[in-house]
Every structure is written in C-alpha cells, then in structure tokens.
C-alpha cells in the first residue's frame, strides 16, 4: 500500500509535525506567553515548556478559577461578571479552535497522545505482547475518571483556592499531575519538572501522583493503547462541546455490522459502541479522538465516514480496507523479536 494513501501514516506525519511545532516551536513564535499562538489550545501543549509554541486551555482555566472567579466570589460577588469574563474569553478562543477540528485535536495534534502512540509503536517493534483491546467493563468503569478530574482538578480545587477554602498549592492541581508537563519539559532538555516536592503534604502527594503516573503511562503505553488519554480531562472537555465541531464520525449501520466488529477492535480508545450502535448516525462518542482508525478498518463501503461540515472526507471502502489490513499485518510482523526469531531459525540448521 502506498504509505501516502494510508490514513494512519498521514496522521502520524501530522502528529509528529504538531509535536515538533508545539514542543519546540517557541523558537519561531517567541519565548513569552504573549507570543504563543492561541493561549487556549484544545490539546495538552504545556506552558511549563519554555520552547513551546502554545499552551493548553486547561492552564488558563485553572488560573482564572483561582485568581479571577474565586477571588471575585471571595470578594462578595460584586465583581462576579469581571471575574467570569477571562474564563469566557478563554472558552470562546477554545471553541473557535474546537469548531474547526473537534475532537481530532486529541487524535491528530496532542503531543502527549502522539508520545503514547509512538511508545506503543515501539512496543510493537520490540515484539512486546500487546493487549488488543481492554475489557469493556474496565473501559466503562474508567470513563467517569476524566470527568472527575475535569470537575475537581481543573475547576473545583482552583475555584476553592481562589475563594480561600484550600491552600494555594491546589490552585493548579491538574498541571501538577499532568504527564505532559514532565514529558514536554524533558523533551526540551529541562529536567526541573521531574521532582518530588517536600514543601508540604499537598505538594508531596501531587508530585508523587505526577511522577508515578508518568512512569506508569510510559510502561503501559508499550502494551496498551493510549493509557492516559482514557482519563484525560481534555477529552471530557471536548466531549461537552463535541456537537459543535465540524468534523464528525458518522455511521450508516447495516445488518452486516452485527457480524463484524473490526471498527471496535481498531479503536485505540476501545469504544465498543462504534460497533454496537445501530440507530444514531453521529457516533462521535465522548471518548472518540477522531483518529479515523475505525473508518480505515471498516470493510463495508461508506458504513463509517469522517465528515467535515456534512461533507465526507474519508469513507470506509473495501478497496482501501484490503491493502490497509495487509499493510497492518506486515507492520506488526516486522518486530525485533520476529527478526531475532527468524535469525535464530536460520542459524539452527547451520549448527546441526
């Protein structure tokens, strides 16, 4: 299969370009926060990365809850609208961007998502035994976690900090545990964000969670697809506004869907509902990252489609599916382990 006709290859190129731009692009855009592209990116591009070209929208949300809205409430609520205004501006900027790409910011742009995918590819190439898909019960149990993180760590604790109910170390708790902070700073040669903070119990607990989760994510990514994405609050924030995005995953279900299920197997987020959903046309589920893999691996013509403003931009097609499946099989077979095994096999007859 021509790699340039392979959607996964095209996506990988976009992801790597986006990774380089958002992690190192500050050398082009400028050093200061005022130089950054949007200041409300719908992907985990970290403000702690001094060479970054943009910052994720969760950072201003936390700061505004703490220093604007929280303080306005603490001040008696007289300036509530003034306190809310920066958050509305950030939300507006986020939505303008979000309308263009919808949840594809996760599947195509996010540096942390790219890092996990690359690690998973590394696991493949090393010949590590990977889990095809997680148990559906486990996936279902994990889904509320991202909502809890969004509500508590992005909005709740920062707001309570601003009001004065909790200490200042809970002013930006999601940033304190976010693996993207550690990853992107390390990627630029800055190790200052990988630490255990003994200042007090709050900082100690947050830094313990951050470091442990970073290590956990690295190891799990080698064998499981997108482990952190499943609990990422950005995914939850996207889910709230997914009806506004121009890019959608659309399903024209047929009775043949019952017997297949390849779409759910291909999904890196293990969304089994893509397979089972037979009524709804818009199947951009809350965990969907619009990566398009389900469309690639759907063997029936036009059953799954990526549509932009109702115009199909990529549709399931048996003519695409067959070479794509073959290309995937070849990719998975060529691992270090298989090379070593085949080398060992060719050596054996000589020894005998």
């Amino acid at each position: 299969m021509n790699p340039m006709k392979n959607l996964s290859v095209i996506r990988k190129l976009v992801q790597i370009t986006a990774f380089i731009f958002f992690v190192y692009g500050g050398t082009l855009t400028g050093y200061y926060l005022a130089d950054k592209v949007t200041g409300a990116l719908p992907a985990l591009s970290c403000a702690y990365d001094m060479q970054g070209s943009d910052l994720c929208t969760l950072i201003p949300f936390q700061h505004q809850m703490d220093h604007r809205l929280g303080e306005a409430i603490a001040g008696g609520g007289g300036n509530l609208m003034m306190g809310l205004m920066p958050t509305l501006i950030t939300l507006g900027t986020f939505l303008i961007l979000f309308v263009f790409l919808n949840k594809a910011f996760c599947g195509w742009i996010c540096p942390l998502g790219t890092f996990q995918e690359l690690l998973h590819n590394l696991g493949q190439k090393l010949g590590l035994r990977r889990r095809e898909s997680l148990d559906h019960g486990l996936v279902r149990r994990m889904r509320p976690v991202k909502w809890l993180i969004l509500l508590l760590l992005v909005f709740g604790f920062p707001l309570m900090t601003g009001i004065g109910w909790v200490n200042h170390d809970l002013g930006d708790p999601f940033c304190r545990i976010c693996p993207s902070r550690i990853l992107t700073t390390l990627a630029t040669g800055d190790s200052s964000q990988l630490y255990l903070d003994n200042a007090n119990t709050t900082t100690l607990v947050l830094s313990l969670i951050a470091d442990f989760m970073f290590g956990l994510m690295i190891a799990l990514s080698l064998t499981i697809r997108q482990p952190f994405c499943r609990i990422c609050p950005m995914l939850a924030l996207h889910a709230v506004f997914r009806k506004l995005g121009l890019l959608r995953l659309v399903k024209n279900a047929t009775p043949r869907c019952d017997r297949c299920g390849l779409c759910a197997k291909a999904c890196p987020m293990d969304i089994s509902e893509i397979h089972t959903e037979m009524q709804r046309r818009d199947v951009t589920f809350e965990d969907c990252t619009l990566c398009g893999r389900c469309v690639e691996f759907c063997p029936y013509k036009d059953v799954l489609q990526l549509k932009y403003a109702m115009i199909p931009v990529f549709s399931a097609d048996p003519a695409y599916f067959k070479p794509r499946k073959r290309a995937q099989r070849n990719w998975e077979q060529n691992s270090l382990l298989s090379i070593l095994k085949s080398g060992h096999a060719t050596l054996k007859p000589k020894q005998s």
Partner: protein
Amino acid sequence: MNANLYPAAFVLMFCFMMPAPDVVAQTAAKPGSGPEHTAEQHRRGPKKIALTDSKGAVARLWKPDLTTLPLTVEHGNITLPRTGVDNYHAVVVEKDRGHLKEVLIRYEYMHGKPSGHSTSELTAAEKTPFEIVPDPVPREHQHYRSDQRWNFSLRFKGTPAVDIPVTLETSHGTRVNAVSDSGGEFSLHIPDDFPDLKEGERDKRTAEFSISAETKDNGILYRTMLSAAYRVKPSHWQSSGLGVAVTGFGMLAGVLLGSIGLTETKRKAR
C-alpha cells in the same frame, strides 16, 4: 573602569503594597512559614518603589505597547499606577547631572486585560542611551531564582556595548562580575545566598539583585543599573532523584499491570 567601584546609583526597596497601607518592604517570608495562603494574598494593590536618593530623578513607566506615562516621585517613593493591561512594564528612572547620566530600569509584571504585545517589544525598545537588557526577562508567572544563570545584553545608543565590565550585587551582599562580549552579551549566575535556609523546607523569601555597568562617551559618564527580585531555588525542598525513583516505581507498576492483564487475556483465549 572598575565595576567594583560603582556606588549604587539608586537603591531600590521594592514592595507589593497589599491592602493594608502600612506594609512596606515586606517581601521576605520567614523560612518554613508554611503554605497558608488565602484569597486575600492574591489581591493586588499598587506596587511601590522607594529610591534612596531621588533628588532630580525623572521616572517614566513604559507600557507593553511602548507608550509611556510620567511617574511622580514623592518623598523618594514611586507608586506605579494601574495601567489596565497585563504583562511586563518597564520602570525607567533617570538622573541627568550633565557630566553624569544615571539610569535605573526595572521590569515589573502588572495585571489587567491582555496587552496583545510581547515582552520582546519592550526589551527591544531603546528606553535610555545606556541600558542593560534581560535576554530574556523571566516568562510571565516565572521568576529569577537563586543558582540560575541568566543572559543579558548591554546596549549603548542602540548598538551592542562591547567589553564592558558588569557587576551583579545581591541584597545579601554577594557580588558577581562579568564582561560583555563582542555582541554586548553576558551571562550571570544568580548566587544561592539566602541565609538560614533549611533543607527540605519551602522558603518563600525574595531578595533583590542589581546589575550595574558604566561607560564614558564624549566626556559624559553613563551609569546604568537593572534591578529585579529573585527567589530561593526550589531544589532546596524538591528532589529530582526521588522524582526519578518514583517514576521508576510507576514504570515497574506499569510493567506488572501490563503482564497481569496479558495473563488474563491469554487465559481468556484458552
């Protein structure tokens, strides 16, 4: 020229004026004073600068859009007015005695509506003939900290000032010397000189440093000074080694979780 001979042209005492009007020069917190913060501490009052020798001093405030406001020096104090825009502003205090021109510059972050201008515009603007320019100024929400190396450049009438000795002096009395290179650039290591630090305890104290230099042109002596606040480096209470160790435990847990999951998958397959 000997950088060590400079008398401090202006000595600044800097303070956040909190809502209580009698708070003066209270930037230093006691070590180990704990993490207690309330919303009260986030309220921003006008910033105030105290000059030890303000006679004949003319002060201006440069906004991020490079417009300027005159500042009033009253009894040796300058109160920075609210400008309504956020980002760095530059306070420029000048004294002209004919044969001696002195200037002090300080970059201060102020809050308000987004200015829409990069701090690089403010640093690039020629605010005075002889100027020490931070390259860069600490990014928004960040600070100079002890035991860090920062780059600066020296500019004289818009061109790099070459081979000029510069001195950094902290309010704790430490001095560090450097010389500007062929591009007018130099780097300085901010000393880790906070007294009575307790390892493992967060220390929120701030102190001041000033960088000074002088040059002569057409019989006029130009003295310039850049001042800023710096804080204690966090590695006194943050451990990178332990951070790496915890990450290692996380990786180990990931490997174990992955292998347990695989065993279950294999069992199911059978």
